[in-house]
């Protein structure tokens, strides 16, 4: 398969698989839990991958906000 | 980060602050006219605000506004003026003006794009100049604009002041109905407030940065 297709497939299927396996785990995310890993596209034209970019290197502050261009 | 420069409507003799939309969680509703105990008179003709600031306050007909919800602006004064709504002026000390840069010019440029952006006022910058406030480098912005939909206008003066690694601000906004006349006197009291303003102790960030240094960070 073409590399790009494989990447696209991975990007779509990994989150879906994790979504299916996690079930409702996110609703009970607690301090002390292992942070769910992710590999997702960003606004800076590259993927953000927790283990590649942050694990062992940086503390990560994740800020969830409902939508762009709304009061934040 | 956030301004409370929304005008506040007086209802009868009880000053009620409407839920004018405060983007960043600062509501007019969060502020109430505060009894003078938050302010302590000194023999120097100034007042102390808690144990944090000292300055020359405007006359007693200006209400002290204290942000009770712990928002970004901490203290300010409101004057209800004669004339149709919205005839009022507010000025305040805001430790976190809009923007993220530590560079005054860059911060000023960005600040102007956000100032009063949610108020319906079409803001234009009429003048920008350098200044010194409390011995620190500052930029002064003069802005005004109209909201034709609500037939009102506003005129503002903003000081963005360098304070260590951060930038703080002093902001004054005068509101008028479209056919109203701006006055000079409230701005004079603002000037006195700004130029008499002193910090009585180190702020959170100054203390934090010292702690980082101690830790070798």
């Amino acid at each position, binding site marked *: 398969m073409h590399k790009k297709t494989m990447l696209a497939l991975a990007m*779509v299927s990994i*989150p*879906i698989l*994790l*979504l299916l396996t*996690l079930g409702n*785990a*996110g*609703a*009970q*995310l*607690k*301090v*002390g*839990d*292992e*942070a*769910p*890993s*992710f590999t*997702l*596209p*960003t*606004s*800076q034209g590259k993927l*953000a991958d*927790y283990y590649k*970019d*942050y*694990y*062992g*290197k*940086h*503390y*990560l*502050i*994740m*800020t*969830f*906000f*409902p*939508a*762009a*261009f709304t009061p*934040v | 980060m956030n301004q409370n420069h929304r005008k506040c409507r007086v209802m009868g003799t009880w000053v009620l602050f409407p839920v004018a939309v405060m983007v*960043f969680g600062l509501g007019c509703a969060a502020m109430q006219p505060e009894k003078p105990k938050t302010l302590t008179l000194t023999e120097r003709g100034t007042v102390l605000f808690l144990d944090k600031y000292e300055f020359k306050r405007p006359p007693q007909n200006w209400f002290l506004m204290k942000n009770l919800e712990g928002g970004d602006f901490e203290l300010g004064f409101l004057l209800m003026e004669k004339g149709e709504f919205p005839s009022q002026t507010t000025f305040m000390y805001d430790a*976190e003006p809009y*923007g*993220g*840069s530590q560079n005054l010019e860059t911060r000023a440029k*960005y600040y102007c794009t956000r100032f009063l952006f949610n108020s319906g006022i079409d803001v234009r910058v009429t003048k920008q100049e350098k200044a010194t406030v409390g011995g620190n480098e500052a930029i002064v912005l003069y802005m005004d604009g109209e909201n034709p939909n609500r037939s009102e206008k506003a005129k503002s003066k903003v000081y963005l002041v360098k304070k260590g*690694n*951060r930038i703080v601000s002093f902001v004054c906004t005068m509101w008028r109905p479209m056919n109203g006349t701006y006055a000079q006197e409230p701005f004079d009291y603002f000037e006195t407030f700004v130029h008499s303003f002193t910090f009585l102790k180190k702020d*959170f*960030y100054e203390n*934090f940065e010292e*702690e*980082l240094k101690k*830790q070798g*960070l």
Partner: protein
Amino acid sequence: MDAHQRDSYLYARLNARVLGVSKDDPITNKLFAESLELEFPIVSNGLAFMAKAYGAYSEKPPFGPDGSINTFGRRTVVIDKKGIVRYIKDGSPINREILELLLTLEKESRGQK
């Protein structure tokens, strides 16, 4: 959001990075970041995965009855260098708390109290 940008010089000293998560696509997020002069990346929660996994959908489900993605709530999560969640706060972040936590984590990682 610009509070994180204002504190970025402190985050750098504390070895912390910021990652935004929004429901919008990468281009919209890029324009948004530019409009606020944000230097940190924003991840797109297009499949509702992130917000669901991180519990930002505490008040409503990730998908509406028509299959559209619901907006999620504001939430701040801080993760240490070992991938463990150390702080969760719903609503507007209190930046001082985050800074103090990062300093504590850094001291902890050096074996200090």
